[in-house]
């Protein structure tokens, strides 16, 4: 019962919060104010900036529930969990130390297309990290009970 509850929180948080922040980081460069391009809007960009931050903070529930689940199931130490935790830490640091501050810079001082390209690249890396984690969660290499 506890395991089911933890897994539900883990998966739901992954879909809603991590998915939300991943979508917001991807869309931010598309809507951020810049010289060229149609449909750009400061208010949309500000909203995406807030979603990036708020959903990432709420997304903290996902590794917390996942780690608790791993301990409850006695799986802590299996290689797929270790790699997933490292990738999660990398993604979190990327979002907090690179993507979020650079978004703030773009909103404060718009106009440099190079910054938006860099943000697009970081968003791609951020999304890729989560894609790899999801595959690890499904394939579970190194799992005692098989995938």
């Amino acid at each position, binding site marked *: 019962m506890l395991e089911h509850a933890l897994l539900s929180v883990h998966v739901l948080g992954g879909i809603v919060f991590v998915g939300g922040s991943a979508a917001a980081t991807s869309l931010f460069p598309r809507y951020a104010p810049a010289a060229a391009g149609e449909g750009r809007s400061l208010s949309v960009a500000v909203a995406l900036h807030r979603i990036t*931050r708020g959903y*990432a*903070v709420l997304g*903290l529930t996902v*590794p*917390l529930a996942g*780690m608790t689940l*791993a*301990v409850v199931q006695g799986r*802590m*130490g299996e290689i797929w969990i270790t790699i997933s*935790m490292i990738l999660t*830490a990398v993604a*979190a*640091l990327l*979002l*907090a*130390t690179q993507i*979020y*501050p650079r978004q703030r810079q773009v909103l404060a001082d718009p106009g440099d297309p190079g910054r938006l390209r860099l943000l697009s690249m970081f968003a791609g890396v951020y999304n890729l990290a989560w894609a790899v984690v999801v595959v690890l969660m499904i394939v579970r290499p190194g799992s005692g009970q098989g995938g």
Partner: protein
Amino acid sequence: MRLLRIAAAVELTTLAVLIANLLTVHAKAVTTFGGPLHGISYVAVIAAAYLAPSTSPNGARWRAFIPAIGGLLALRALHTQEG
């Protein structure tokens, strides 16, 4: 700010528990849960320091990278800036 406060407390207490456990009974259950919890709180402290609404860089972000007490140092730096 609330996130930074919680993460800083967890960062320091988990490390204290881990070291105390290492020096005494060395129960594997404590290590298994405390280790990752300390790791996640370390990352959370850094993330929270960067997400904190400070406009002027004052070293709070770099302080967050210091192990164990980085969160408390970052909190203090941000408070100094406010006051």
